[in-house]
């Protein structure tokens, strides 16, 4: 795969949409003259069958291994090219589509010749990127170890059964292995399911007797490490001091949350005012109580309306059992009018036959408990009534319990306050959809009854089985664009892990302080803010490296005129907005050249600096509207990096406005057009950065600083917004103080060091301190020189008592 890149360029006429607007023959001529373009041709429609066949024949003829197609939206077309050319050995990343139609042809009124110039710049930049791009080998995910089912939820059994039905061995961790005890505990999670216990018992026995299921008895999950395919799990086992370790390929988590008793304000006392979970035990295991039993479905009153139906259902099952078995029992179910009753016609008829009353009450008049009577207002007339009671049965409270939180924490799950366990919100790849149902089941994840929990377990088992079978057949491939952490460079600072919003980065093994981090490619969404945040350049995004972006930005900047600028566009907001602007024929300023990026969060400050080093007078970065970012906070991270660049520009005496951040929405192309226009005016008013050796040296020092200075990169990463932070850091107290006193001061110190280093690197000779002071026009440099000396960057020797500094080899 590491052969020399041979790039072919195909230009599209797109009927009359590109050809008359852009001077394609001139463009083709310009591109053919480039030494790094092996082949260039204009086709009427490269995307249609005749065009694709022609491209394939040219690929074979010229042994092309990279392709740049200049046509329309890559977002729509790339997949078709990738599909058609995969047989020619083209993997994702080896084909790039430049949007000649919507970023060049349709959106400005410049002449076809000028448009061909603009097109050439964009295409040449894409080709330059292709040249430095080394495709990674296609990896596969191995799943030799069995799947493990943890959490101990009731869905574990259906998941295990489904896996064994598929002939897949699995591990099942259970805290309680005795069938009767398991059944007795079910009512703590799912009340009102007694009639189904015989079937549940059958299921549990089947799983216990299955030869495919290995049960880890009386075990509790204590630690998880590893990535999809090779997990290592530790369990603590009752009455045993040793920790048991197991290898697993995938983890199915089945957790049910234990219901708790209602609050005192509803009169709960455990004797006459009971909770459904307590009462069920009495009814089924002891005597059926005589007299008036009122089930008050108080879920709406206790702010958990979404569970009202579950509570009503379980109340009905218990009430029905009481009425059937006992003559002296009278049951009333009192429910809020907002709730549709979860009963079928037959069940309603049965209720009438048994004399089980179902009474709805007005939602605005809260029922009130008093001695022997409960008051409620009827619907429509709002007349208050009284019901006699001997015992009141309240709905249980659904809250994430401590045990669930503990297991969730071990598995790295997150949850919104008082809500369900969740993995993450990122949904940027279609593969991420359905992710939950493959790995999670139980009432800790969704509101559900026993039946739904079991069917979720079955589904998790089925999907997991499919995954395992795919992996065993060698057909499970991780996505092409994922982060990779070089274990030799990783210093275990943990910044990436704290910033990752897809739960993909974990500690490889052992202690977090010394063990490198590792990326799970099956979870990584390729957002890439981790790579840009790594203080030690240990993270790369496979097939989409920082070097590629730097090269593309550099190539574009190199070709640009004095009033043109680079625009980085997020592929979720600004890039579609730009595409849509083209589709709608909106006209805007042509001086900004667009480079699409998967998320603005992956633009390293070094990419911005590189553009300036190579002569760009301005850089514009257009991301999503805050809080709309597909990668949680890529937008906020980009903001921080731009801010760093602005600070450095101020320190070096350049205009801060040269680098700007904008927000865009895919459905508002007109706003994107305005953004481009406004920034173009800014750049035009500023003019180019004067091309003096001093300015060049300054820009190069900025590049050196943001790319290699670990102190600044660490300070920057530490200040980035974390995925769980609901408010932006900028809102917090002390931030200004931190920014002013710590960050900016550190920048000043490090910038001088970077500039010194730049002098040593370019001049390649020794300097005395006086010379250096004059070059940098600084009063004191001794501290910085000492530090560089200590870091081993420079060394010094004495000539006639004066220290002379030179670069270390």
């Amino acid at each position, binding site marked *: 795969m590491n052969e020399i890149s041979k790039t072919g360029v195909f230009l599209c006429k797109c009927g009359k949409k590109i050809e008359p607007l852009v001077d394609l023959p001139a463009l083709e001529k310009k591109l053919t003259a480039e030494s790094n373009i092996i082949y260039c041709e204009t086709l009427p429609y490269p995307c249609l069958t005749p065009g694709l066949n022609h491209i394939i024949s040219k690929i074979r003829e010229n042994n092309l291994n990279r392709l740049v197609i200049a046509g329309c939206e890559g977002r729509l077309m790339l997949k078709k090219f990738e599909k058609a050319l995969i047989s020619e050995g083209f993997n994702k990343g080896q084909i790039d589509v430049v949007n000649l139609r919507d970023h060049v042809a349709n959106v400005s009124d410049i002449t076809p010749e000028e448009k061909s110039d603009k097109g050439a710049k964009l295409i040449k930049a894409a080709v330059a990127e292709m040249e430095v791009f080394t495709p990674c080998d296609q990896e596969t995910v191995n799943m030799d170890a069995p799947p493990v089912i943890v959490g101990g939820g009731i869905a574990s059994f259906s998941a295990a059964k489904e896996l064994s039905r598929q002939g897949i061995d699995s591990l099942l961790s259970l805290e309680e292995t005795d069938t009767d005890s398991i059944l007795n505990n079910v009512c703590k999670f799912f009340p009102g399911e007694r009639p189904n216990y015989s079937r549940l018992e059958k299921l549990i026995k089947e799983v216990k007797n299955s030869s495919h299921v290995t049960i880890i008895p009386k075990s509790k999950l204590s630690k998880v490490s590893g990535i999809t395919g090779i997990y290592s799990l530790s369990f603590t086992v009752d009455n045993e001091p040793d920790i048991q370790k197991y290898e697993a390929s995938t983890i199915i988590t089945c957790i049910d949350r234990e219901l708790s008793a209602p609050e005192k304000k509803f009169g709960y006392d455990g004797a006459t005012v009971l909770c459904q979970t307590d009462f069920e035990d009495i009814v089924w295991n002891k005597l059926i109580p005589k007299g008036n039993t009122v089930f008050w479905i108080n879920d709406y009153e206790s702010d958990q309306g979404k569970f009202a139906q579950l509570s009503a259902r379980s109340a009905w099952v218990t009430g029905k059992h009481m009425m059937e078995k006992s003559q002296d029992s009278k049951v009333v179910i009192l429910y809020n009018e907002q709730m549709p009753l979860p009963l079928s016609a037959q069940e309603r008829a049965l209720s009438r036959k048994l004399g089980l009353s179902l009474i709805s009450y007005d939602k605005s008049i809260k029922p009130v408990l008093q001695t022997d009577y409960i008051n409620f207002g009827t619907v429509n007339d709002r007349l208050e009534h009284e019901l006699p009671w001997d015992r009141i049965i309240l709905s249980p409270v659904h809250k994430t319990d401590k045990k669930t939180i503990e297991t969730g924490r071990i598995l790295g799950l997150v949850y919104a306050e008082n809500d369900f366990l*969740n993995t993450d919100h990122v949904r940027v790849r279609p593969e991420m959809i359905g992710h939950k149902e493959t790995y999670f089941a139980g009432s800790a994840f969704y509101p559900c009854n026993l039946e739904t929990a079991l069917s979720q377990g079955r589904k998790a088992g089925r999907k997991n089985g499919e995954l395992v079978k795919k992996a065993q057949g060698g057909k499970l491939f991780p996505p092409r664009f994922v982060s990779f952490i070089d274990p030799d460079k990783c210093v275990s600072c943990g910044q990436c892990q704290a910033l990752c919003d897809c739960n993909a980065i974990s500690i490889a093994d052992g202690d977090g302080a010394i063990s490198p981090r590792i990326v799970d490619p099956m979870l990584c969404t390729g957002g890439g803010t981790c790579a840009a945040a790594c203080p030690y350049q240990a993270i790369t995004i496979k097939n989409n490296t920082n070097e590629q972006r730097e090269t593309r930005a550099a190539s574009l900047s190199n070709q640009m005129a004095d009033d043109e600028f680079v625009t980085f566009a997020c592929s979720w907001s600004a890039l579609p907005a730009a595409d849509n602007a083209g589709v709608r024929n909106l006209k805007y300023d042509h001086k900004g050249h667009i480079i699409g990026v998967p998320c603005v969060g992956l633009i390293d400050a070094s990419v911005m600096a590189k553009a300036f080093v190579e002569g760009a007078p301005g850089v514009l970065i257009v991301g999503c509207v805050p809080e709309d970012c597909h990668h949680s906070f890529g937008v906020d991270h980009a903001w921080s990096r731009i801010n760093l660049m602005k600070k450095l520009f101020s320190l070096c005496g350049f205009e801060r406005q040269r680098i700007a951040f904008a927000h865009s929405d895919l459905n508002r192309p007109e706003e994107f057009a305005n953004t481009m226009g406004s920034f173009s005016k800014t750049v035009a008013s500023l003019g180019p950065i004067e091309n003096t050796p001093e300015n060049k040296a300054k820009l190069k020092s900025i590049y050196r600083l943001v790319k290699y200075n670990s102190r600044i990169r660490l300070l920057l990463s530490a200040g980035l917004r974390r995925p769980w932070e609901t408010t932006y850091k900028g809102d917090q107290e002390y931030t200004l103080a931190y920014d002013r006193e710590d960050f900016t001061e550190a920048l000043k110190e490090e910038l001088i060091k970077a500039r010194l280093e730049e002098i040593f690197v370019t001049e390649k000779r020794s300097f005395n301190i006086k010379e250096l002071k004059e070059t940098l026009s600084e009063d004191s440099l001794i501290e910085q020189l000492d530090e560089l000396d200590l870091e081993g960057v420079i060394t010094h020797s004495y000539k006639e008592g004066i220290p002379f500094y030179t670069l270390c080899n």
Partner: protein
Amino acid sequence: MIKFNINDTEVEVEPGCTVLEAARQYGIEIPTLCYHESVAPSGACRLCMVELKDGNWSKLVASCIYPAAEGINIYTETERVHNVRKWLFEMLLSKCPGSNEIKEMASKYGVTSTQFPIENTDEKCMLCGLCTRVCEEVVGLSAISIVDRGVHKKIGSPFLVPSDVCVACGCCVTICPTGAMSARIDAVRRTPDVTLTPLAL
């Protein structure tokens, strides 16, 4: 290779091509709306109708889905084709009078008014289903679909509520040939949920 004639000019394409692909390869213009290169053709809008002649006998076929065959004679600008195009544009103008794209295209082919009643002057969607196809074939999801049946047919997410499945990539907006989707996407996409709490120790 297959040889056949379009407008009495001989064209040559590989097997598996459609008539439309062949015509485009040779620079012959055929109007299309529901056709997009990134997805499989569906032949929904019928605007790409061409006449296939065989001696005295002829029929109209949708060129985007009609496979090229040896020796057939295709005509793209006959009276029958013009007639059918005119009626199609009139129907489109009555169904989606709000769409500038359709208006421009129709006037290019000489149709500026419609004899059919106009129900909703703001309507832009012609229900070609291109957005649902791109969602399925390119994005790999089915966040939007054609909801309801018959005259109640419309484009939207299931139950017409913002969908969890939608990743808000905007492919449907970009591909929409009539500009109708931009008014609909806000009812489909969902703001990502960013209120996450880490599990406390």
